[in-house]
């Protein structure tokens, strides 16, 4: 299920910390609810994003959903694989389907997020 080393938001995004760089993506629950992902719109690297603010859009055949960043800071990298081949978000939401990397403005933001067990409980 959802990896235990990640943090989760109630908007169904996840964070993987590497030093002070937060890798961000959507959860299995999110991609399964969306269905086949056919379009991902992400900002340019270098853009600032606030915690829980909209940073992009993800679209399935039928629906459009906003993407909300679980952490705030400067976006240092965006995943071209996700915009070029959106199906990677369905295939490997916790791996090659990651979306953005954020240089964390303030590590205490992570306290606002859930661990995998707490996140799992919100889905039931």
């Amino acid at each position, binding site marked *: 299920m959802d990896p235990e080393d990640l943090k989760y938001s109630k908007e169904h995004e996840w964070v993987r910390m590497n030093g002070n760089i937060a890798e961000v993506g959507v959860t299995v629950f999110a991609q399964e609810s969306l*269905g086949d992902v*056919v*379009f991902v*719109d992400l900002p340019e690297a270098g853009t600032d994003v606030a915690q829980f603010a909209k940073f992009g859009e993800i679209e399935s*055949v039928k629906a*459009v959903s906003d993407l909300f960043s679980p952490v705030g800071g400067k976006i240092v990298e965006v995943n071209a694989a996700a915009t070029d081949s959106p199906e990677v978000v369905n295939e490997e939401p916790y791996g090659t389907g990651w979306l953005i990397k954020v240089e964390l403005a303030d590590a205490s933001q992570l306290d606002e997020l859930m661990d995998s067990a707490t996140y799992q409980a919100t889905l039931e």
Partner: protein
Amino acid sequence: MSDESQEQILKKTVLHSTHVESNAKMVPFGGWDMPVQYADGIIAEISAVRNVAGIFDVSHMGRLEFEGEGAESFLSSFLSANLPALKIGRGKYNFICNEDGGIIDDAMVYRTGDQSFLLVINAGNADIDMEWINPLVAKSKGFTMKIVTNETAMIAIQGPKAVEIIDTLSNDEASSIRRFRIGSATVAGISATLARTGYTGEDGFEIIVAADQGEKLWNVLRDAGAIESGLGSRDVLRLEAGLPLHGNDLSTETNPFEAGFGRFAYFEAPNSIAGAALKRISETESGRALVGFKMTGRGIPRSGLNIHESNSSNIDESNIIGGVTSGTHSPTVDGGIGMGYVEQKYSATGTKIIIDVRGRPVEAEIVDMPFYKRS
């Protein structure tokens, strides 16, 4: 993600439990609880229908039988089909229009006998259609009307292998029914009415059987290799095929001529309610036209988005030239496609337009429909 569940009691087709057992994602549609997709997803279903065959539960669509010497005249009063010219065993796409020529619904009408007809209407419009039809029934005579929606099931099988599959199950009876015709056959031991029509741009049949035979037929078709397909793929398939959806591309605010379907708007029946209006509209140049367009920039068009003139530096209210009525990502053409109404002078094929995708201007170009044509 928004929760669109409603408080109203949703109707269930006789195949409802079959869909649930197949792990379909169920959604409310037109008052019914219907499968929007099965486990493999919309794109896999689209591919199955384009390359092999898919099956769709279309039992929610309204089915009405009319019989008697007065049936042809009665139906001519509110359908835009030339019924005296419709031969036995043939079907015709047509419209139910109001006195102003506005489209209440689009429908298929079939002549199943000298004095008998089958009318198939949209599920979501069934109540509105009946509010329109019932007072007319009360004023007419010489026929009986029977609503058979609940006592029958209807399954569409669509795709390049569809006819072959039905032929195998019917001792080759089915393929003798040609395109846009209707006939009877025994399919896997089940007596069925087969219309060689559909809503996907593929060859195939819409098969009507007794309600208690619906599940058996569904399982036989699935075992024969047809892939279970839901409303999600059906909506993409119909858009790829350039087929309009009432409620999106057609409404009482639009008429058949500006929608580009004037050839299905026969108005010369002497008792036609919409006849005078449709005749007048047919003789007037309309201010707008329903067009198909393909995205040339990055973005997916969606119903309700504004269409702007292409040479405008900013997208604002002053350069709106129309609106998107249907849009999606098409896996078959690999890009964003849509339909919408634009002012007549922007409707020519090749015209460049801009779609306002939630504040982001994205380039598109008007193209001929269908977006997909079977080979």
